[in-house]
């Protein structure tokens, strides 16, 4: 996988999924911390 376009596609896709999961994690942590 040496083509920059292919690398960009994989980085963008996996990066977006991980970023969304991380955003959910921090939102969840914020709301549970507030209630504590």
């Amino acid at each position: 996988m040496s083509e920059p376009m292919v690398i960009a596609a994989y980085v963008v896709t996996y990066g977006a999924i991980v970023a969304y999961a991380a955003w959910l994690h921090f939102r969840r942590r914020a709301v549970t911390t507030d209630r504590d």
Partner: protein
Amino acid sequence: MTKIQVMLGLAAVALAGGLVLALNAPIDALQGEFSRIMHLHVPASWLAFLAFGVTAVASIMWRIRRTRAWDRRAAASAEIGVLFTALSLATGSLWGGAVWGTYWDWADPRIATTALMFFVYLGYLALRSASPDAESAAARSSILGIIAVVQVPLVYFSVNMFRSLHQGQSIRPDGATMPGGMLVAMLVNVGVFTLVYFALLAARTDVMRQEEAARALEPAAGEAVRPPRFDEVPDV
């Protein structure tokens, strides 16, 4: 460990497995390495269809049952659908730039209808945000969620209905138009992305439920410190 954490953990392991399979799958003789983008583009497009379909079903269920859980499912699914539609457009654009020689072409019906679908569901999310409370957000967005799903078959069949740069369906009743190794990698990644979708949907609806519970406590706390209104001040 909660059920949602187990689902997210399984989704992460499956994503890693899908990645290994996609990077080791056979490549197309003409497209070369660029054909590997299809292992992302096709699953992302499928997830957009699935997510908006779930939004429509959950919107119908909300109109029948009027329970918060169905509204949360509709909203969460639309949000995830928007994410995967954006990924479908981004990966498709990168592939198009490499193979077609153009990143974007408004004349292509599938690109145009997918972009339209993306903006309509962005509008769905904006409509929810602009609504004053959860009940009115559910009432307004459920109508849009039911109507907007007509775009899914429009996007899917657009390559058959209009002249398009896109190829027709690769998996047909009379067989697939790609080698077995490529097909297996693509189908496994469709399954992996579906698992990721359900894990993210469970996590997003849970966050929404907790945020609603936290918001329900806020007015009670605010009431105690509310300044008196003019008509409440006694004449002295």
